[in-house]
């Protein structure tokens, strides 16, 4: 199995895409879109993150075991965020909070 070698041209393309996305995220932040500001900002950040992981970190060309490990990291982070918010956002919904 020969090692995959990414071309400098592709790296520069990814670099330029990341710069353009940074400009877009700033431009969008200047508009008042209400709750959509956060959604758009996080979506752009996620796309940038995917570009870095797939091309700069070579996950696109790595073994499935390595890719699975990367996905597992994001998966555990999602559990952490979802379960924590599940607690914080539902406090007082079922039983009153003592002392409040």
């Amino acid at each position: 199995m020969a090692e995959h070698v990414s071309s400098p041209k592709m790296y520069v393309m990814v670099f330029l895409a990341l710069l353009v996305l940074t400009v877009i995220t700033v431009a969008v932040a200047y508009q008042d879109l209400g709750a959509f500001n956060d959604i758009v900002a996080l979506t752009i950040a996620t796309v940038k993150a995917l570009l870095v992981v797939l091309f700069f970190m070579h996950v696109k060309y790595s073994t499935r075991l390595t890719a699975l490990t990367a996905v597992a990291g994001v998966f555990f982070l999602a559990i952490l965020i979802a379960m924590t918010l599940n607690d914080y956002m539902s406090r007082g919904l079922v039983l009153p909070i003592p002392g409040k």
Partner: protein
Amino acid sequence: MASTAFDTHLHEGHHHPSMQHQFDSLEQQKESSTLGMWMFLVTEIMFFGGLFVSYVVYRTRFHGVFALASSALNWRLGALNTAVLIASSLTMAMAIWAAQMNRRKLIVVFLIITILLGSTFLVVKYFEYAEKFEHHLVPGPGFQLMGKTYSGFAPDPEHYSQLVGKTDQAQVFFSLYFVMTGLHALHMIIGIGVLTWLLFPSRKGKFDSSYYNPLECTGLYWHFVDLVWIFLFPLLYLLGAHIHH
């Protein structure tokens, strides 16, 4: 395929100087080191993840105050640092490309550019922190968000009134700002240290297309630190951009 590699290993009686005994082939060795590095990065995701979770909890609670406090940060410097970090990721990737192409001298050149870009990031960060200390935006007894106007933070009186009695909430934002960017900066310093250490074997010509695992693993770490910043930039700097034009 593995058995073929094992046979050549036995028959030749010697192997690549950078190959450890426990591996059948250089390929297997690279596979293992990459996987091991990713395992470490998973723990790093959880390390920063705790901070991101506290950010999410307080951002949902103190939504408006976070936006106002965020507008006290200089997004232009944040954007500049984003570009600097992305550029350093490009040069890091190019250092690995140089190794894959057996261009030994180019490895050193790209590593040095990466180190310089990483250092530029930290210098910009230093000026940002210094400005925050000057403007009493460091959480603690001297914290003061209102009644101060200076370039970069001048919300209209209507927005000032929203902040009355909410200094504590603004301090939470700045606590998260300092801890998250501080931990990120610490990772940058460690990364620059490792890259500097890699200059020595690179100069000696230790890395080429057959073996460059230390470059690959350091690259993974460097790109990960870039990734964290990609999320920190919009979450910390851009929340209040639409408030003051």
